[in-house]
């Protein structure tokens, strides 16, 4: 699988995504610099990593969406290319209108970094296909503005189209207010577009995909993408 990792000024999980795809999963991986448009035709996956692009000034993702590389990514996505936005990458995809909804400040008004459980809501997408029988993943979150919001009508639509891929839950897979770390509407942790080729999620799968560290559930997402390409 040929992967591209976008580097915005302020991206800080770019090296982590690169490490997992290139060194752990042995995929062909390239950097994509934000200042230039790129020909993405030969790519199978573009990752928008986590971090604080443009210092989160104005609104997370609000400035990054105007980077030249985003023109290429929008074209790539409209053409069916697979795009994965993690954390700040998710925020940028929302600002770019490649995904529906928005992300607001956590209910606690604090940054939260910890392991959480998420339930896979739709195992039949390029991002979740390898989950097998496993329905609850342990993946860390690390964000200040990760509370997903969308109006009730659109939320309903997302549910009907099976666009909600992950919901925060407890270790047994029960979704409740207690297991919702940031106040996301419907406990939504990750969504996809209608075509199911663009996904954004707040949890960081690259943080639990290296055997040297605790937890390997993040590999399921990357392996799903690899098996697809």
């Amino acid at each position, binding site marked *: 699988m040929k992967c591209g990792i976008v580097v915005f000024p302020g991206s800080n999980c770019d090296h982590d995504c690169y490490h997992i795809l290139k060194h752990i999963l042995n995929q062909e991986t390239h950097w994509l610099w934000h200042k230039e448009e790129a020909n993405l035709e030969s790519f199978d996956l573009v990752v928008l990593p986590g971090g604080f692009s443009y*210092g*989160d*000034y104005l609104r997370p993702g609000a400035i990054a969406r105007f980077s030249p590389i985003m023109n290429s990514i929008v074209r790539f996505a409209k053409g069916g290319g697979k795009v994965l936005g993690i954390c700040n990458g998710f925020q940028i995809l929302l600002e770019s209108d490649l995904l529906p909804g928005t992300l607001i400040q956590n209910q606690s008004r604090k*940054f*939260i970094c910890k392991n959480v459980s998420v339930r896979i809501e739709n195992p039949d997408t390029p991002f979740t296909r390898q989950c097998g029988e496993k329905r609850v993943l342990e993946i860390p979150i690390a964000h200040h503005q990760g509370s997903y919001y969308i109006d009730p009508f659109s939320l309903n639509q997302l549910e009907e189209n099976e666009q909600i891929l992950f919901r925060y839950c407890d270790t047994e897979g029960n979704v409740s207010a207690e297991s919702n770390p940031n106040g996301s509407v419907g406990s939504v942790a990750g969504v996809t577009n209608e075509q199911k080729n663009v996904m954004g999620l707040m949890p960081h799968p690259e943080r639990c995909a290296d055997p*040297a560290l605790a937890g390997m559930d993040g590999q399921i997402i990357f392996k799903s993408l690899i098996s697809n390409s």
Partner: protein
Amino acid sequence: MDKSFLNLLFQIPDTVDKPKKNRPSPEITPEIVKEHGLTVEEFRRILDLIGRTPNLTELGIFSVMWSEHCSYKSSRPYLKKLPVEGPRVLQGPGENAGVIDIGDGQAVVFKIESHNHPSFIEPRQGAATGVGGIMRDVFTMGARPIALMNSLRFGELEEPRTRFLLHGVVDGISSYGNCTGVPTVGGEIYFDACYNGNILVNAFCLGLVKTDRIFLAGAGGVGNQILYVGSKTGRDGIHGASLLASSEFDETTEDKRPTVQVGDPFTEKLLIEACLELFECDWVVGVQDMGAAGLTSSSFEMAHRAETGVFMDLSKVPLREEGMIPYEILLSESQERMLFVVKPGHEKEALAILDKWGLDAAIIGEVIEESCVRIQFDGQEVVNLPIFPVVDGALDLKRPTKRPEYLDEVVHISLTEFPDFTRGDRALKKLLACPNIASKEWVYEQYDHMVRLNTLVLPGSDAAVLRIKDTNKAIAISVDCNSRYCYLDPYEGAAIAVAEACRNVVCSGAEPIGLTNCLNFGNPEKPEIMWQFQQAVEGMGDACRFFDIPVVSGNVSLYNETKGDAIYPTPTVAVVGLIENQEQVMTQGFKKSGDQIALIGFTMEELGGTEYLKVMFDRSEGKPPVLDRKHEKQVQDFCRELIKKGLISSAHDCSEGGLAVAVAESCFSPGCQTLGATLTLESTLRNDTLLFGETQSRIVVSFPEECINEIKDLAMAFPVDFSLIGKVGGSHFTVTVNGKEVVKQDIEVLKEIWKTSLGNYAGQTT
């Protein structure tokens, strides 16, 4: 500096009154000298050294460079006594940070630094810029920062301002560290009334560098170009070092708020990436962060180190606002700025890299042969000062020392004053709930502690552990200081801080290889404070020599007092350890029901300075625990041997709260499942000392039953005190002493108390 002069400075109109070329330098009166924090003797010395009266700008330069904060004039004679050498030391004190070789062509660069006064006045920005400053100290050496830690001290919980300061400081560290993508992997937090009027924020950073790419802060090579990099210079932080950091707090403290700098972590992140790219180029000669005393200290110090001089044209400095005068440009402590020295002919390449990262940059001068700093502004020379008097001219002060009288009142206690208990449940619960012992989860959950994928041991264990990618090695770090011990005996307290930080690192499987310190004390003009300082540095030095740990960097913060009330002496240390094999990383949590629990070391009848006395009797008295260094070394060596041989499943240092708290913490350590434990103790000691005494040199370990004999034989051969004390398992934490039950509590209940106490306090609204 009194308010009138600050007003004069900050009231200079921004745009209306453009700098006049011939603005006359005001006459240097005794009042102006005094407002610059210089004594009459010091001013006379300046006149003698330069042979004329300095102009106002030059006086400003002397003011910051001769301040306590920059010159170390009170502390330097004592610091010389610390051991700074060792086979692994590549760079000791004197540069931006210390460097220790970890083998295979790699080294770790680290330092801890205070940002106490700014954080008390403006907690969010004060703490944030503290983090930014220490990170720049590390990456100026050519290293990529891979870990942040911190040591925080707040006032007692009842003090109304404490909650505000706690929120502000944690928010500042979180917002700055998280944005730069450097994980904050651990630290320590204490609360005590002695910090009510003066909190401590000590920030630590560690970076990784190739041994052949270490950069030093020298302006070598006449004709080389001086390159200014980073944020534009503004009017923030003027006299932060000289006036804020080098005097105690009083009624005018609030007026000093303009001396606090404002941080921009986004620029810092760009600066890290751009600098690391510049360091790949062989035409970069030297680099220095513009920290305390900004452009002034960086230019003078770089020239001083390389025995050269520097010429600068301030008209070329990127400015944030119009109308700034040389005085302000030179003394500004605007954040996220660096000074590079590059070989001529490579300016364009350098500027191209900085432009790629969207950073301001400008060539502002060059290295000259004459040993002086000459500064020009609008075509006129505004500063011409020889290097030596400014950098090294401040006289070391031989401040008088005197043993404080309070010691006679507090060190003698009789245990008979404190009735022993037959049930320890209540004390255990109170200790687990007290904020110095309770889980710091509320704090570290706000820090991104995982980014960069190196964090092997998450916050909440004895030491933070990070792997070194592409090797089998890992680094363990522990920050430590029990300032109550230091208050009761600064010599022993400082030695214990070293011993305990080493013990923490050993418990995670590492060998201690280096230390950095942050010496926080009160007003050095008081003989009693100087005595504390002298004692603590001696205790630290002796302990470092005994354990063979070099001190490679550090920082001194004096004048930590408000209206005459000094903080407890707080000589914080950070010890870095090396683990050769990642398989041998050890954690403090119990792993398996049925495992044996044992204690390495023995318990003595000591209660002085304990958290138990403070929490149960509100007394900070007595002699701190005795540290037998030889015994300590044996205990540490034995523990490391057990880990190396793969015989044990957990190791946890006994510290605040003693044996009972240590075992309880092992029952519910983060990252491990919650397990109960039963301790069966035989002892002639009082119950309180046995359970909650803080005797040093003790480690609680657990291991599978089949390892018992091998471990016992090893202990005999070593020799080291070793006793089986109980078993892991069950749903309760139970302690029996001489056959009588002393504690029995549901482990989930204890865990809940410990886990939620600090968060509950922080979340309350008043």
